């Protein structure tokens, strides 16, 4: 049976068909839906782990016990999981182990554009890269087979366009999960120096075996063209663009196994055509390999290292004519993503902005506090960096007391806790604000250890943030409602004034949660409105100026009342 499937759904289907029985992940665009779809299959145990390192180690443990297991993450998540990754390469596996990592060329929703293939090379772990949903499913299954055949974890590299494109997928019967026997094997699984020294040559031998496999595997496919003047080496989504432009005219070497790369097969291909061009998004990985083999190729001399490709970018590079098009003569105002109407983060950022605090921000919806008109954030680096960074900022800048950090509930559980322990242990008067909206918001509402529910929506242990912060050595922990601007401002001023570390939990569930019932929309009395625009300082998408008066869009307003607190003329109020 065929079904139109997102690449991510296809990976989940592949997990099912491969008999994978344990999946542990941390959400991150564009990888999130893999685990969400997998959680719909009763055959697979799925969970949201607090972070990618934990998820990767859970998958390792399940593999050690003999089950086929997987973990899924976005590219920057692999940085967090890098520690287990490198040594899992040495131990190898028992049950097959697959790590799905989704890159984001073009940075549709990421803080950098790193190329995960470097991790495959550095950790000496094989990596597969599908070019559509069908391959996403097929390669997931192949990944488990390779994992067990070569005794190694296997990386499956997705990218935004493959993860979030739907195409037709042939569904097959799920395999029954087969659990291998667990046999104690300290020489293989205890990576202390004496054992690891013996494992390293095993890894090198495995790489040599994988290269031999790469020479003949149908994963690496040569599509011979009629025109021998050009041969293109490519993989993943770039293959799609290449075929779109050239069809079957030129020869194409499509790599499905992108680490390790074949040697002889590439040499043979290069010899069969007059000119070789490597087309790959992000870094010149295949190109560097070819050049090391002494093959003359074009690559990053004609294509950018930055950003996504498209069929037009490729056509243009070869001087192939494309359609003309009409352009706007006037500039079009940008439409950036914004905090939703009723977003609980808005009130907090308004207060921070109004009082000119320096704010170290973090990764989540609340990163949008950096946008106009709030402009409330000074830095955003990576998950958890706001808390540790604040400590460093305050160590360097001990006289000032106007710097805080803002981190979400899920991000705090992911990587903020250790930074807070450092604040307590090494002592700064830091004020950490945890924006607790009872959900992992940015990635589309996933549960986390502070919400009280698991991935299936069933009740789970709810970690008490106040008790956790106290246990981490913070004596001053206070809770505020960010819809209450006065109270929020008072508490922030008090906590930044004291000479010891403190935590403020700004608590209010995400306005988009189904459990949150919107209040009636507010309205603005045009007779009372003095057009001062005070209500527009919070950047609420529901408020705009029409005929010089502020008006509220009743289809967007959820009645949070934050704008009401800003109006000096009592023009904003409940519905009549």
């Amino acid at each position, binding site marked *: 049976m065929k079904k*139109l499937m997102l690449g991510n759904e296809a990976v989940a289907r592949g997990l099912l068909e491969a008999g994978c029985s344990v999946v542990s992940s941390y959400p991150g665009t564009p990888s999130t839906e893999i685990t969400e779809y997998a959680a719909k299959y009763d055959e697979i145990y799925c969970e949201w782990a607090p972070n990618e390192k934990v998820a990767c180690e859970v998958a390792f443990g399940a593999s050690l016990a003999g089950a086929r297991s997987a973990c899924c993450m976005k590219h920057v998540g692999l940085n967090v999981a890098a520690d287990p990754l490198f040594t899992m390469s040495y131990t190898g596996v028992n049950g097959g182990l697959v790590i799905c990592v989704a890159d984001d060329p073009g940075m549709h929703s990421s803080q950098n554009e790193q190329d995960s293939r470097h991790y495959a090379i550095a950790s000496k772990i094989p990596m597969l890269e599908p070019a*559509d949903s069908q391959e996403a499913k097929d390669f997931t299954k192949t990944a488990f087979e390779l994992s067990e055949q070569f005794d190694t974890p296997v990386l499956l590299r997705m990218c935004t366009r493959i993860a979030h494109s*739907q195409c037709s997928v042939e569904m097959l019967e799920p395999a029954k999960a087969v659990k291998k026997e667990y046999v104690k094997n300290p020489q293989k699984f205890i990576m202390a120096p004496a054992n690891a020294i013996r494992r390293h040559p095993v890894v090198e031998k495995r790489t040599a075996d994988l290269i031999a496999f790469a020479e003949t595997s149908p994963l690496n496919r040569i599509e011979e063209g009629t025109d021998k003047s050009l041969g293109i080496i490519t993989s993943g989504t770039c293959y799609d663009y290449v075929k779109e432009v050239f069809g079957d005219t030129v020869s194409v070497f499509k790599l499905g196994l992108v680490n390790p790369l074949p040697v002889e097969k590439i040499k043979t291909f290069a010899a069969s055509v007059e000119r070789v061009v490597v087309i790959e998004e992000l870094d010149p990985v295949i190109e560097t390999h070819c050049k090391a083999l002494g093959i003359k190729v074009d690559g990053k001399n004609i294509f950018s290292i930055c950003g996504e490709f498209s069929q*037009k970018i490729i056509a243009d590079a070869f001087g192939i004519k494309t359609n003309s*098009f009409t352009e706007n003569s006037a500039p079009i105002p940008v439409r950036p993503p914004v905090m939703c109407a009723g977003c609980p983060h808005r009130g907090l950022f308004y207060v921070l902005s109004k009082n000119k605090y320096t704010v170290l921000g973090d990764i989540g919806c609340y990163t949008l506090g950096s*946008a106009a008109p709030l402009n409330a954030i000074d830095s955003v680096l990576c998950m958890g960096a706001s808390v540790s960074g604040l400590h460093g900022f305050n160590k360097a800048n001990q006289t000032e007391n106007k710097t805080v950090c803002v981190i979400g509930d899920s991000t705090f559980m992911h990587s903020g806790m250790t930074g807070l322990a450092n604040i307590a242990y090494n002592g700064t008067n830091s004020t950490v604000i945890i924006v607790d909206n009872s959900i992992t918001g940015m990635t589309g509402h996933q549960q986390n250890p502070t919400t009280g529910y698991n991935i299936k929506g069933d009740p789970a242990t709810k970690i008490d943030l106040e008790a956790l912060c106290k246990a981490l050595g913070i004596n001053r922990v206070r809770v505020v409602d960010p819809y209450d601007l006065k109270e929020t401002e008072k508490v922030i001023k008090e906590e930044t004034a004291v000479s010891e570390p403190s935590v403020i939990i700004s608590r209010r569930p995400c306005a988009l949660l189904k459990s949150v019932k919107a209040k009636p929309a507010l309205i603005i009395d045009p007779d009372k409105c003095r057009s001062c625009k005070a209500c527009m300082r919070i*950047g609420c*998408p529901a408020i705009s100026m029409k005929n010089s008066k502020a008006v509220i869009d009743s289809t967007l307003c959820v009645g949070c009342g934050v704008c009401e607190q800003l109006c000096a003329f009592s023009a904003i109020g409940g519905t009549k």
Partner: protein
Amino acid sequence: MKLNIMIVGVGGQGSLLASKLLGRLLINEGKDVKVSEVHGMSQRGGSVVTYVRSGEKVYSPIIDKGEADFIVSFEKLEAARYVDYLKPNGKIIVNSQEIDPMPVICGTCEYPKSILDELSAKGVDIDCIDALSPAIEAGSAKAVNIVLMGKLSNYLSIEKEKWLEAIEQSVAPKFVEMNKKAFEFGRAYK
């Protein structure tokens, strides 16, 4: 024959359902189909783009500049934003709704009211309809997406029954009748 349709709008307007409907419709026609969506950041009131492509064999999941046969836009400004993706002789179907983006709300720039007229003057084929009123009449302001699909259906050589069948397969049972009504309103819109 290849068919490229771009659906553009503002996060939360229902472009994903429209692309799901089109994907289903074209699969039912026996075509190879790719539908490319945007997730993450852009869901929060940002500009949203979805590509729907079909043909005997579709490779690329995206539509590039000068390639769209149709741009279906849920909002005026968004239609203008992506006009360069339209093929020569392509057609824009646009909902006449105006939704202010944040720079307009903040007062740093004005909503370019006459933008579509300027594009029409340049020869762009623009079919601007008020999709909101028929959607509300059908039962929900959220049915703007299906009203626009109804309008689009006039330009594709696919029987009406096939569209209605795809609607049945794409929306929850309790919303089927409302969406069929919205589709009919869009299809009959003059």
